[in-house]
Protein backbone atom coordinates (compact mmCIF):
# COMPACT_ATOMS: atom_id res chain seq x y z
CA UNK A 1 0.00 0.00 0.00
CA UNK A 2 2.76 2.44 1.01
CA UNK A 3 4.71 1.44 -2.11
CA UNK A 4 1.68 2.23 -4.25
CA UNK A 5 1.24 5.66 -2.65
CA UNK A 6 4.94 6.41 -3.16
CA UNK A 7 4.70 5.23 -6.79
CA UNK A 8 1.70 7.51 -7.43
CA UNK A 9 3.45 10.46 -5.75
CA UNK A 10 6.46 9.96 -8.01
CA UNK A 11 4.18 9.91 -11.04
CA UNK A 12 2.64 13.20 -9.92
CA UNK A 13 5.96 14.92 -9.23
CA UNK A 14 7.47 13.84 -12.52
CA UNK A 15 6.51 16.21 -15.33
CA UNK A 16 5.84 14.24 -18.49
CA UNK A 17 5.98 15.62 -22.01
CA UNK A 18 4.84 13.77 -25.12
CA UNK A 19 6.27 14.91 -28.44
CA UNK A 20 4.84 13.66 -31.72
CA UNK A 21 6.84 14.41 -34.83
CA UNK A 22 5.89 15.01 -38.43
CA UNK A 23 4.94 12.06 -40.57
CA UNK A 24 1.51 12.65 -42.11
CA UNK A 25 -0.69 9.60 -41.93
CA UNK A 26 2.11 7.63 -40.22
CA UNK A 27 1.47 9.68 -37.07
CA UNK A 28 -1.63 7.53 -36.51
CA UNK A 29 0.86 4.99 -35.15
CA UNK A 30 0.95 7.13 -31.97
CA UNK A 31 -2.59 6.05 -30.99
CA UNK A 32 -1.26 2.96 -29.11
CA UNK A 33 0.97 5.30 -27.09
CA UNK A 34 -2.09 7.29 -25.94
CA UNK A 35 -3.84 4.01 -25.06
CA UNK A 36 -0.85 2.79 -23.07
CA UNK A 37 -0.48 6.03 -21.10
CA UNK A 38 -4.20 6.06 -20.30
CA UNK A 39 -4.07 2.42 -19.13
CA UNK A 40 -1.20 3.31 -16.80
CA UNK A 41 -2.96 6.41 -15.49
CA UNK A 42 -0.21 8.65 -16.85
CA UNK A 43 -1.48 12.08 -17.87
CA UNK A 44 1.05 14.19 -19.77
CA UNK A 45 1.72 17.72 -18.55
CA UNK A 46 2.59 18.87 -22.05
CA UNK A 47 1.88 17.74 -25.60
CA UNK A 48 4.04 19.02 -28.43
CA UNK A 49 3.13 18.15 -32.00
CA UNK A 50 4.34 18.83 -35.48
CA UNK A 51 2.43 18.22 -38.71
CA UNK A 52 0.80 14.75 -38.60
CA UNK A 53 1.92 14.52 -34.98
CA UNK A 54 0.26 17.89 -34.42
CA UNK A 55 -3.06 16.56 -35.71
CA UNK A 56 -2.89 13.55 -33.38
CA UNK A 57 -1.72 15.46 -30.30
CA UNK A 58 -4.47 18.03 -30.85
CA UNK A 59 -7.13 15.33 -31.19
CA UNK A 60 -5.94 13.65 -27.98
CA UNK A 61 -5.65 16.97 -26.11
CA UNK A 62 -9.23 17.82 -27.01
CA UNK A 63 -10.92 14.42 -26.64
CA UNK A 64 -8.84 13.13 -23.67
CA UNK A 65 -9.77 9.61 -24.78
CA UNK A 66 -7.51 7.41 -26.94
CA UNK A 67 -10.36 5.13 -28.02
CA UNK A 68 -12.20 8.15 -29.48
CA UNK A 69 -9.02 9.22 -31.31
CA UNK A 70 -8.77 5.70 -32.73
CA UNK A 71 -12.36 5.92 -33.99
CA UNK A 72 -11.57 9.30 -35.57
CA UNK A 73 -8.60 7.96 -37.57
CA UNK A 74 -10.68 7.49 -40.72
CA UNK A 75 -12.08 11.03 -40.39
CA UNK A 76 -8.65 12.60 -39.98
CA UNK A 77 -7.30 11.12 -43.22
CA UNK A 78 -9.71 10.62 -46.13
CA UNK A 79 -8.95 10.41 -49.83
CA UNK A 80 -11.30 13.26 -50.75
CA UNK A 81 -9.45 15.73 -48.52
CA UNK A 82 -6.60 15.97 -51.00
CA UNK A 83 -8.53 15.57 -54.26
CA UNK A 84 -9.08 19.20 -55.27
CA UNK A 85 -6.09 20.02 -57.47
CA UNK A 86 -5.34 23.71 -58.03
CA UNK A 87 -4.96 23.64 -61.82
CA UNK A 88 -4.04 27.31 -62.04
CA UNK A 89 -0.99 26.59 -59.86
CA UNK A 90 -0.06 23.70 -62.16
CA UNK A 91 -0.42 25.95 -65.22
CA UNK A 92 1.72 28.60 -63.51
CA UNK A 93 4.47 26.02 -62.81
CA UNK A 94 4.43 25.05 -66.50
CA UNK A 95 4.47 28.73 -67.51
CA UNK A 96 1.21 28.36 -69.42
CA UNK A 97 -1.50 30.99 -69.93
CA UNK A 98 -4.16 31.29 -67.21
CA UNK A 99 -1.67 30.05 -64.65
CA UNK A 100 -1.58 31.87 -61.34
CA UNK A 101 0.58 31.40 -58.31
CA UNK A 102 1.24 33.41 -55.18
CA UNK A 103 2.09 32.53 -51.61
CA UNK A 104 -1.54 31.81 -50.75
CA UNK A 105 -1.73 28.87 -53.17
CA UNK A 106 -0.48 25.29 -53.41
CA UNK A 107 -0.84 22.30 -55.73
CA UNK A 108 -3.92 21.13 -53.83
CA UNK A 109 -6.77 23.35 -52.65
CA UNK A 110 -7.15 23.40 -48.89
CA UNK A 111 -10.93 23.84 -48.61
CA UNK A 112 -11.74 20.17 -47.91
CA UNK A 113 -9.02 19.94 -45.26
CA UNK A 114 -10.15 23.19 -43.65
CA UNK A 115 -13.73 21.90 -43.47
CA UNK A 116 -12.60 18.58 -41.97
CA UNK A 117 -10.51 20.33 -39.30
CA UNK A 118 -13.36 22.76 -38.48
CA UNK A 119 -15.73 19.79 -38.15
CA UNK A 120 -13.32 17.98 -35.83
CA UNK A 121 -12.09 20.84 -33.69
CA UNK A 122 -14.94 23.36 -33.93
CA UNK A 123 -14.10 26.63 -32.20
CA UNK A 124 -11.87 24.99 -29.58
CA UNK A 125 -9.17 27.37 -28.34
CA UNK A 126 -5.68 25.97 -27.67
CA UNK A 127 -5.34 27.78 -24.35
CA UNK A 128 -8.59 26.21 -23.08
CA UNK A 129 -7.45 22.59 -23.53
CA UNK A 130 -7.09 20.65 -20.29
CA UNK A 131 -3.63 19.43 -21.37
CA UNK A 132 -1.16 22.09 -22.45
CA UNK A 133 -0.49 21.91 -26.19
CA UNK A 134 2.22 23.41 -28.38
CA UNK A 135 2.07 23.06 -32.16
CA UNK A 136 5.16 23.52 -34.29
CA UNK A 137 4.86 25.53 -37.49
CA UNK A 138 7.21 27.45 -39.80
CA UNK A 139 7.12 31.01 -41.12
CA UNK A 140 6.92 30.72 -44.91
CA UNK A 141 8.77 33.98 -45.55
CA UNK A 142 11.68 33.57 -43.11
CA UNK A 143 11.84 29.80 -42.40
CA UNK A 144 11.81 30.60 -38.68
CA UNK A 145 10.16 28.13 -36.30
CA UNK A 146 6.80 29.34 -34.98
CA UNK A 147 5.19 27.89 -31.86
CA UNK A 148 1.43 28.01 -31.69
CA UNK A 149 0.18 28.05 -28.10
CA UNK A 150 -3.08 29.98 -28.24
CA UNK A 151 -5.96 30.88 -30.52
CA UNK A 152 -8.23 28.68 -32.60
CA UNK A 153 -7.10 25.06 -32.66
CA UNK A 154 -8.24 24.06 -36.13
CA UNK A 155 -6.21 26.67 -38.02
CA UNK A 156 -3.17 26.03 -35.80
CA UNK A 157 -3.41 22.32 -36.69
CA UNK A 158 -3.60 23.27 -40.36
CA UNK A 159 -0.64 25.67 -40.01
CA UNK A 160 1.42 22.90 -38.41
CA UNK A 161 0.68 20.46 -41.22
CA UNK A 162 0.44 22.60 -44.37
CA UNK A 163 3.03 20.79 -46.49
CA UNK A 164 3.84 23.64 -48.86
CA UNK A 165 3.94 23.68 -51.90
CA UNK A 166 1.51 20.76 -52.00
CA UNK A 167 -0.85 22.48 -49.55
CA UNK A 168 -1.21 26.26 -49.40
CA UNK A 169 0.05 28.21 -46.38
CA UNK A 170 -2.38 29.82 -43.96
CA UNK A 171 -2.26 33.39 -42.71
CA UNK A 172 -2.48 33.41 -38.91
CA UNK A 173 -1.97 36.56 -36.86
CA UNK A 174 -0.37 38.29 -39.83
CA UNK A 175 2.12 35.51 -40.63
CA UNK A 176 2.02 33.02 -43.49
CA UNK A 177 2.57 29.63 -41.90
CA UNK A 178 3.54 26.25 -43.29
CA UNK A 179 4.35 22.77 -41.99
CA UNK A 180 6.56 22.59 -38.89
CA UNK A 181 8.60 19.86 -40.61
CA UNK A 182 10.62 22.63 -42.30
CA UNK A 183 11.96 23.98 -38.99
CA UNK A 184 11.62 21.32 -36.26
CA UNK A 185 10.18 17.96 -37.39
CA UNK A 186 10.30 16.40 -33.89
CA UNK A 187 10.17 19.38 -31.53
CA UNK A 188 11.74 17.78 -28.46
CA UNK A 189 13.61 20.97 -27.64
CA UNK A 190 10.28 22.58 -26.75
CA UNK A 191 9.63 19.87 -24.15
CA UNK A 192 13.16 20.37 -22.78
CA UNK A 193 12.64 24.15 -22.76
CA UNK A 194 9.41 23.65 -20.77
CA UNK A 195 11.24 21.63 -18.08
CA UNK A 196 9.60 18.26 -18.68
CA UNK A 197 11.35 15.54 -16.64
CA UNK A 198 10.44 12.55 -18.78
CA UNK A 199 9.98 13.18 -22.48
CA UNK A 200 8.43 10.54 -24.71
CA UNK A 201 9.14 11.37 -28.34
CA UNK A 202 7.75 9.59 -31.36
CA UNK A 203 9.20 9.90 -34.82
CA UNK A 204 8.25 8.06 -37.99
CA UNK A 205 10.80 6.87 -40.49
CA UNK A 206 10.48 5.22 -43.90
CA UNK A 207 13.20 2.78 -44.95
CA UNK A 208 12.09 1.97 -48.45
CA UNK A 209 14.01 -0.50 -50.54
CA UNK A 210 12.38 0.11 -53.91
CA UNK A 211 12.87 3.18 -56.08
CA UNK A 212 9.85 4.95 -57.47
CA UNK A 213 9.15 7.15 -60.49
CA UNK A 214 6.38 9.04 -58.73
CA UNK A 215 7.06 12.81 -58.47
CA UNK A 216 5.24 13.31 -55.17
CA UNK A 217 6.91 10.21 -53.67
CA UNK A 218 10.35 11.63 -54.57
CA UNK A 219 9.42 15.00 -53.13
CA UNK A 220 8.23 13.35 -49.91
CA UNK A 221 11.45 11.31 -49.74
CA UNK A 222 13.50 14.49 -49.91
CA UNK A 223 11.43 16.09 -47.15
CA UNK A 224 11.76 12.89 -45.07
CA UNK A 225 15.57 12.76 -45.44
CA UNK A 226 15.93 16.44 -44.60
CA UNK A 227 13.61 15.91 -41.65
CA UNK A 228 15.58 12.89 -40.38
CA UNK A 229 18.92 14.73 -40.38
CA UNK A 230 17.47 17.92 -38.92
CA UNK A 231 15.85 15.82 -36.18
CA UNK A 232 19.13 14.07 -35.35
CA UNK A 233 20.97 17.32 -34.81
CA UNK A 234 18.14 18.65 -32.65
CA UNK A 235 17.91 15.38 -30.67
CA UNK A 236 21.61 15.46 -29.86
CA UNK A 237 21.20 18.98 -28.51
CA UNK A 238 18.08 17.93 -26.56
CA UNK A 239 19.95 15.04 -24.91
CA UNK A 240 22.76 17.40 -23.99
CA UNK A 241 20.43 20.00 -22.47
CA UNK A 242 17.97 17.67 -20.74
CA UNK A 243 18.27 16.57 -17.11
CA UNK A 244 16.47 13.20 -16.90
CA UNK A 245 15.26 10.78 -19.59
CA UNK A 246 14.08 11.13 -23.16
CA UNK A 247 12.49 7.98 -24.54
CA UNK A 248 12.67 7.78 -28.31
CA UNK A 249 10.12 5.73 -30.16
CA UNK A 250 11.17 5.64 -33.79
CA UNK A 251 8.44 3.90 -35.76
CA UNK A 252 9.91 2.38 -38.92
CA UNK A 253 7.84 1.77 -42.07
CA UNK A 254 9.03 -0.21 -45.06
CA UNK A 255 7.25 1.87 -47.69
CA UNK A 256 6.26 5.44 -48.43
CA UNK A 257 2.74 6.22 -47.22
CA UNK A 258 1.26 9.27 -48.92
CA UNK A 259 -1.64 11.53 -48.11
CA UNK A 260 -4.13 9.07 -49.57
CA UNK A 261 -2.90 5.80 -48.00
CA UNK A 262 -6.11 5.45 -46.00
CA UNK A 263 -6.39 1.71 -46.67
CA UNK A 264 -3.21 1.27 -44.60
CA UNK A 265 -4.60 2.87 -41.41
CA UNK A 266 -5.07 -0.44 -39.49
CA UNK A 267 -1.54 -1.57 -40.46
CA UNK A 268 -0.09 1.81 -39.44
CA UNK A 269 -1.69 1.58 -35.99
CA UNK A 270 -0.45 -2.02 -35.62
CA UNK A 271 3.14 -0.99 -36.45
CA UNK A 272 2.79 1.73 -33.81
CA UNK A 273 1.52 -0.84 -31.32
CA UNK A 274 4.64 -2.97 -31.80
CA UNK A 275 6.92 0.06 -31.43
CA UNK A 276 5.14 1.18 -28.24
CA UNK A 277 5.12 -2.36 -26.79
CA UNK A 278 8.91 -2.44 -27.12
CA UNK A 279 9.24 0.79 -25.09
CA UNK A 280 6.66 0.32 -22.32
CA UNK A 281 9.16 -0.94 -19.77
CA UNK A 282 11.55 1.90 -20.58
CA UNK A 283 8.81 4.54 -20.18
CA UNK A 284 7.67 3.19 -16.81
CA UNK A 285 11.26 2.86 -15.54
CA UNK A 286 12.05 6.46 -16.49
CA UNK A 287 8.99 7.72 -14.60
CA UNK A 288 9.45 5.47 -11.58
CA UNK A 289 13.18 6.23 -11.29
CA UNK A 290 12.61 9.97 -11.34
CA UNK A 291 13.76 11.76 -8.22
CA UNK A 292 12.61 15.37 -7.81
Amino acid sequence: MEDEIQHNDQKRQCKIGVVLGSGGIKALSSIPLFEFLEQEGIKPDLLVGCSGGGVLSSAWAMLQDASRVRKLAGELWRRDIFQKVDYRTLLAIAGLPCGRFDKSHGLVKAENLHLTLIKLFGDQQIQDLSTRLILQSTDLLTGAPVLLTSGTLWDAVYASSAMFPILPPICREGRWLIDGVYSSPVPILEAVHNDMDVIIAMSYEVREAEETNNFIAHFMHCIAYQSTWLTRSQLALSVDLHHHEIIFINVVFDKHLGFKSVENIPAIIEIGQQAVDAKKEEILAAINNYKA
Partner: protein
Amino acid sequence: MDIILQKMEEFLIVELKGKVNTLTSPILEKRLLELITDHQHNLLIDFSQSDYISSAGLRVLLIALKQLKTVHGRVVLCGQNKCVKEVFDITGFSQLFKIFPTRAEAVKELTQVS
Protein backbone atom coordinates in the same frame (compact mmCIF):
# COMPACT_ATOMS: atom_id res chain seq x y z
CA MET B 1 26.05 -2.24 -14.44
CA ASP B 2 29.68 -3.24 -14.03
CA ILE B 3 32.61 -1.28 -15.40
CA ILE B 4 35.67 -3.36 -16.21
CA LEU B 5 38.94 -1.60 -16.96
CA GLN B 6 41.79 -3.04 -18.99
CA LYS B 7 44.96 -1.00 -19.39
CA MET B 8 46.71 -1.25 -22.73
CA GLU B 9 49.97 0.45 -23.64
CA GLU B 10 48.51 3.58 -25.22
CA PHE B 11 44.89 3.56 -24.10
CA LEU B 12 42.40 2.22 -21.60
CA ILE B 13 39.57 -0.18 -22.41
CA VAL B 14 36.35 0.55 -20.48
CA GLU B 15 34.06 -2.45 -20.82
CA LEU B 16 30.43 -1.89 -19.80
CA LYS B 17 28.37 -4.82 -18.54
CA GLY B 18 24.61 -4.34 -18.17
CA LYS B 19 22.23 -1.46 -18.78
CA VAL B 20 23.32 2.17 -18.87
CA ASN B 21 20.22 3.98 -17.60
CA THR B 22 19.01 6.62 -15.11
CA LEU B 23 20.22 4.55 -12.16
CA THR B 24 23.62 3.49 -13.51
CA SER B 25 24.70 6.50 -15.57
CA PRO B 26 25.81 8.58 -12.51
CA ILE B 27 28.20 5.71 -11.65
CA LEU B 28 29.57 5.70 -15.19
CA GLU B 29 29.93 9.49 -15.19
CA LYS B 30 31.85 9.47 -11.92
CA ARG B 31 34.17 6.70 -13.13
CA LEU B 32 34.90 8.28 -16.53
CA LEU B 33 35.60 11.70 -15.02
CA GLU B 34 37.91 10.10 -12.44
CA LEU B 35 39.81 8.35 -15.23
CA ILE B 36 40.17 11.55 -17.24
CA THR B 37 41.37 13.43 -14.14
CA ASP B 38 43.80 10.54 -13.67
CA HIS B 39 45.33 11.34 -17.10
CA GLN B 40 43.65 8.49 -18.97
CA HIS B 41 43.06 10.54 -22.12
CA ASN B 42 42.57 7.76 -24.68
CA LEU B 43 39.51 5.64 -23.95
CA LEU B 44 37.93 2.73 -25.75
CA ILE B 45 34.42 2.11 -24.48
CA ASP B 46 33.25 -1.42 -25.30
CA PHE B 47 29.47 -1.99 -25.39
CA SER B 48 29.56 -5.67 -26.39
CA GLN B 49 28.27 -6.73 -22.94
CA SER B 50 25.73 -3.90 -22.68
CA ASP B 51 22.34 -4.23 -24.34
CA TYR B 52 20.78 -0.88 -23.46
CA ILE B 53 21.62 2.81 -23.18
CA SER B 54 19.14 5.55 -22.24
CA SER B 55 19.39 9.27 -22.92
CA ALA B 56 20.96 9.73 -19.47
CA GLY B 57 23.72 7.34 -20.57
CA LEU B 58 24.21 9.20 -23.84
CA ARG B 59 24.59 12.43 -21.90
CA VAL B 60 27.38 10.90 -19.80
CA LEU B 61 29.27 9.92 -22.95
CA LEU B 62 28.86 13.45 -24.25
CA ILE B 63 30.23 14.87 -20.98
CA ALA B 64 33.27 12.56 -21.29
CA LEU B 65 33.75 13.50 -24.96
CA LYS B 66 33.70 17.22 -24.17
CA GLN B 67 36.04 16.73 -21.22
CA LEU B 68 38.49 14.74 -23.36
CA LYS B 69 38.46 17.39 -26.10
CA THR B 70 39.72 19.97 -23.60
CA VAL B 71 42.80 17.80 -22.92
CA HIS B 72 43.25 16.69 -26.57
CA GLY B 73 42.19 13.16 -25.63
CA ARG B 74 40.08 10.70 -27.58
CA VAL B 75 37.25 8.28 -27.04
CA VAL B 76 36.18 5.56 -29.45
CA LEU B 77 33.27 3.16 -29.04
CA CYS B 78 32.78 -0.42 -30.16
CA GLY B 79 30.61 -3.52 -29.90
CA GLN B 80 27.18 -1.90 -30.06
CA ASN B 81 24.28 -4.30 -30.52
CA LYS B 82 21.33 -3.43 -32.77
CA CYS B 83 19.34 -1.65 -30.01
CA VAL B 84 22.25 0.47 -28.80
CA LYS B 85 23.26 1.33 -32.38
CA GLU B 86 19.68 2.39 -33.16
CA VAL B 87 19.67 4.81 -30.19
CA PHE B 88 22.99 6.30 -31.36
CA ASP B 89 21.71 6.61 -34.93
CA ILE B 90 18.35 8.27 -34.26
CA THR B 91 19.82 10.75 -31.77
CA GLY B 92 22.63 11.82 -34.07
CA PHE B 93 25.25 10.48 -31.63
CA SER B 94 26.70 8.25 -34.36
CA GLN B 95 27.97 11.46 -35.95
CA LEU B 96 29.59 12.66 -32.71
CA PHE B 97 31.63 9.54 -31.91
CA LYS B 98 33.99 7.22 -33.76
CA ILE B 99 32.26 3.86 -33.55
CA PHE B 100 33.60 0.47 -34.66
CA PRO B 101 31.74 -2.84 -34.90
CA THR B 102 34.41 -4.83 -33.02
CA ARG B 103 37.00 -4.22 -30.34
CA ALA B 104 39.76 -5.35 -32.71
CA GLU B 105 38.88 -2.62 -35.22
CA ALA B 106 38.69 0.01 -32.47
CA VAL B 107 42.09 -1.09 -31.09
CA LYS B 108 43.57 -0.90 -34.59
CA GLU B 109 42.29 2.67 -34.96
CA LEU B 110 43.70 3.75 -31.60
CA THR B 111 47.10 2.12 -32.10
CA GLN B 112 47.47 3.39 -35.69
CA VAL B 113 46.74 7.00 -34.77
CA SER B 114 48.79 6.85 -31.56
